């Protein structure tokens, strides 16, 4: 594993272009575009204000920089550095901005979810979509970029509009059987739309592209419901994480529950491997701790860590949530399938230090990673069944079937990995610190960093 130098960044704004060639980072009001391989600066753009949101267009030709406070969006071209575009949303204010899948339209959601403004870069035309719903995930483009599903709220009822992204033609418009729609998500093949209700009610609705209701699923009533949803890349499974600390997998044929994954506080499953991160502080004898050493060593706080395979049964650290407060820290907050559909990673909020990996072939628990700090972020490799995660310290953790690795980022200063994401080819990993970034290359040929690896049983 190799690590690049550390670069500055602000607002965690760092994106790799969809074609994988460029790396764009925002530093205050400047946008820096680098070559991913050489990390040479290719372009430098100056925005009008501190950038709040940045996004590559799908064809990697344009970069959108949104300044929500100013209600401004600036678009830069990579091919023609002198070309620029500025969209002013006016006095109404800007809430969010995003590219349409074709990379020629920009969708701006205005304050109060009053409307969505669709700006065309082709002909400067502007169109509005009214009544968008303010919810967790009210808008989703299908994977092929052809359709857009939008949750709407009119007359205290939820509706879904399906648009054709080519010319923003309204294809379907239908009412949903939800109390308070919380999110919509297309299946990866773009034929099924999963719609779920807010956490007050466990309700999952599945609509066909043509607006037919395919199925309704509800696991229980009178309790907090769905917290997270994920489609498998093959559209075969729909994983639903809920507040009852379980993940339910629906199949794509009958849309019935296939299996239920519980997250018990005591792991007894004999087929699961529990990797426990063990921190190893450099051993310093108490009698020869001198001022010299203390002043010398920031290394004193430079803890190393490694994974140990815990023998079953294992007790997972559980944090008791405050149930009286809104959005209690309990339940499955994140679910993600690996690229090959083989594994499912989940995180239970009241077990913040552990990450669960499930085998979808065996439909059982595969591994549990018990970290020393709460898991901040975990991402699957887009090519391999390999999982990267970070816990807000100076280390990157990798899980694969072969075992678990903990790698310290050898950056100067205090580089704490807040979040991370993979490069599209799975060769490198972009680590985001508080105001820095660092690239981590996965080439195993030149291993310059001490790696502590434990092979699984």
């Amino acid at each position, binding site marked *: 594993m190799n690590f690049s130098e550390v670069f500055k960044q602000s607002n965690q704004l760092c994106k790799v272009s969809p074609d994988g060639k460029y790396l764009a980072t925002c530093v205050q009001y400047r946008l820096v575009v680098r070559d991913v391989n050489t990390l040479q600066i290719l372009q430098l753009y100056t925005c009008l204000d501190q950038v709040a949101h940045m996004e590559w267009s*799908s*064809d990697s030709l*344009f970069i959108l920089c949104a300044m929500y406070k100013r*209600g401004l969006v600036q678009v830069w*071209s990579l091919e023609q550095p*002198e*070309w*620029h*575009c*500025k*969209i*002013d*949303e*006016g*006095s*109404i204010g800007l809430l969010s901005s995003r590219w349409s899948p*074709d*990379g*020629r339209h920009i969708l701006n959601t205005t304050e*109060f979810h*009053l*409307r969505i403004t669709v*700006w065309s*870069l*082709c*002909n*400067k035309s*502007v169109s509005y979509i*009214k*009544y968008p719903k303010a919810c967790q995930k009210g808008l989703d483009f299908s994977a092929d970029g*052809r359709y857009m599903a939008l949750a709407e*709220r*009119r*007359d*205290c009822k939820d509706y879904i509009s399906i648009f*054709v992204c080519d*010319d923003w*033609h309204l*294809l379907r418009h239908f009412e949903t059987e939800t109390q308070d729609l919380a999110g919509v998500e297309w299946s990866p*093949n*773009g*034929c099924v739309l999963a719609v779920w209700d807010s956490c007050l009610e466990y309700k999952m609705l599945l609509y*066909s*592209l*043509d607006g037919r209701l395919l199925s309704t699923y509800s696991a229980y009533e009178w309790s907090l419901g769905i917290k997270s949803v994920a489609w498998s890349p093959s559209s075969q499974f729909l994983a639903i994480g809920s507040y009852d600390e379980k993940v339910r997998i629906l199949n*794509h*044929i009958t849309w019935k529950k296939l299996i239920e994954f519980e997250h018990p506080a005591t792991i007894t499953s004999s087929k699961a491997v529990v990797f426990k991160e063990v921190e190893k502080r450099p051993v310093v004898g108490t009698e020869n701790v001198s001022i010299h050493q203390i002043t010398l060593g920031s290394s004193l706080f430079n803890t190393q860590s490694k994974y140990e395979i815990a023998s079953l049964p294992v007790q997972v650290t559980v944090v008791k949530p405050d149930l009286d407060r809104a959005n209690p820290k309990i339940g499955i907050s994140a679910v993600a399938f690996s690229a090959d559909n083989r594994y499912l990673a989940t995180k239970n909020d009241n077990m913040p230090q552990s990450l669960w990996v499930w085998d979808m072939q065996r439909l059982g628990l595969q591994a549990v990673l018990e970290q020393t700090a709460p898991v901040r972020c975990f991402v699957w490799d887009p090519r391999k069944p390999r999982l990267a995660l970070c816990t807000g310290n100076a280390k990157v953790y990798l899980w694969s079937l072969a075992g678990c690795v903990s790698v310290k980022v050898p950056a100067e200063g205090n580089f704490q990995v807040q979040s991370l994401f993979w490069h599209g080819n799975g060769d490198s990993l972009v680590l985001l610190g508080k105001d820095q970034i660092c690239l981590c290359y996965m080439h195993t040929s030149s291993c310059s960093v001490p790696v502590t690896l434990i092979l699984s049983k």
Partner: protein
Amino acid sequence: MGDWWTPPMMPDPSHDTKELSSISHISMSPSRHSSSAALPKHSYSILSAFCTEENVQQCVTYINQEASSLGLGGVSLDSGGPGVSLNAVSALNLFYELLQLNRRNQRQLQDLESQQLKNCSNLEHLQTNNSRLKDQLEHTRRENSGLHEGERQLQLKIRTLQSCLKSEKEEVQKLQNIIASRATQYTHDAKRKERESAKLKERLNQLLVDKRDRKLAIEMVNCVSRSDGKRGLWKTGKMEARHEGEMYKALLSDYEARQQTLMQENSELKKLLQHMKKDMVSILSPKKPCSKAPPTDDSCTKAPPADDSLEQAGSEAEDEGDECSRDALEQVCGAAREQLANSIRLQWRRLKNHMQRLDSQVSLAASQEDTISIREHEEAMQRMRVELQQCKEFIQTQQQLLQQQLSSPFDDDTAALLNDGYTLEEKERLKEEWRLFHEQKRNFERERKSFTEAAIRLGHERKAFEEDRALWLKTQFLNMTPFVDRKRPAMIEGRSALSINAEPETKVLSTSAAPNTSVPHPGFTSNTPSPAHLPSTAELYRTLQLFPESRNPGRRGSNGFQSGDTLTKSRLRNSSTDCSIFSLLRDENSAA
């Protein structure tokens, strides 16, 4: 014992006498006369006066009265005598009667006493029992009351709990009502608020539209072409239709793909099913004959023939099912599938039956093994007994026959004949042995001859070898002499080797001329004898003559040659003797 039990009707003075009499009765054998004699004596000794001379009459009457009251004969007085005297017979009778009575009474009294005692102890026992039971009763009563109390308390508790429950239920109801009302209120409020906000949004929207926000604008250097390079199209009905079409196409393709995968899966599953069925058939079919064969065996007599017939029917049905399923594979329809399922079910049942039967057979065999062995054992015993019987009979008959033979007269002729036969046989055998012995002897002789021949040959060979060696030694010796040119030895050696090869015949010839050559010849003159016979020496000489300065070696060489010759000769002789000895040894060996 209880003197207070004495009958109270008797007057006090008789008290002691009675007792004493009773004691005497007990202590000694009841000789009534003596006692009756003793009694008056005793009674006379006491001067208590029941009867005096004066009141005899009264006494008699009194006694009579008393006796009659007791149902006894009275005492009569003799008035004939000088005084008044008692009629002895009647008095004695009465006395005897009284004594009897007394004794009876005594016995009765004893019985009654013992009865009394028994009763007393009984009473005591009953009393204690009674008290115990009373205690128990008390205890149970107390317990009962305690339980009653407990029950009462529990009931009280139940009542309070019930009331509590009721109140709780009411509260729950109330709370639910409150929740419901709150929920409705909340939803109502939420809706109202939402409507308000919607209205506000609408208003805001309106305002925005009306105001014509100046700032709302897009600034661009120049327009960008579409990503697909085409021009934007107008929204028309045709476009709508096209979108619909595309959508349906996408859906259809998805469904098709899904169906494809399902079909594939289905076919794979069917294949698996078929495979399983085949396996099952193969598992079942070889068992059929053996499961059909056992009925002859007594262990399987329990397996009913109905089962077998069922199996046959099953197998037939299965064959049908097999075909059906094969058909089903080709034509995919519900009925076929049902048939398939049916056939599978049938086979499962068959398999189950089979397994069950196997199990039962195993258990049966386990249970029957002992009995079978016993039965078999018994049968064998029977058989052996019969055999034994037969053997015995056979032996008996044989013995009988032998006896008859022995008992019958033995004539000499037959004996002589028999003896003759024996001697002849022996003679024959001896002759045979003789012949064998002769043959062996001849063989030995032949062998001995061959050995002697071999020994002679060996002697010859040895002689030849000795000659060779002598020659070789000679040449070696010559070569070692300092007069020989140092450049030569290789050549000379080569020649000598050659000569050795060519020599054997010449040597054999030279043996006849040995005496002549054996004479030592000093100097050069000695080289004359038969150079042609010994070409090697001749050659040697020739070479020596070529080099005149080497004189001594020549002479030495002749010496060597001569000595070598004699040596070989003697050796030959020795060897011949050796040979003879050897052959003798061989003879001895062969004779041994």
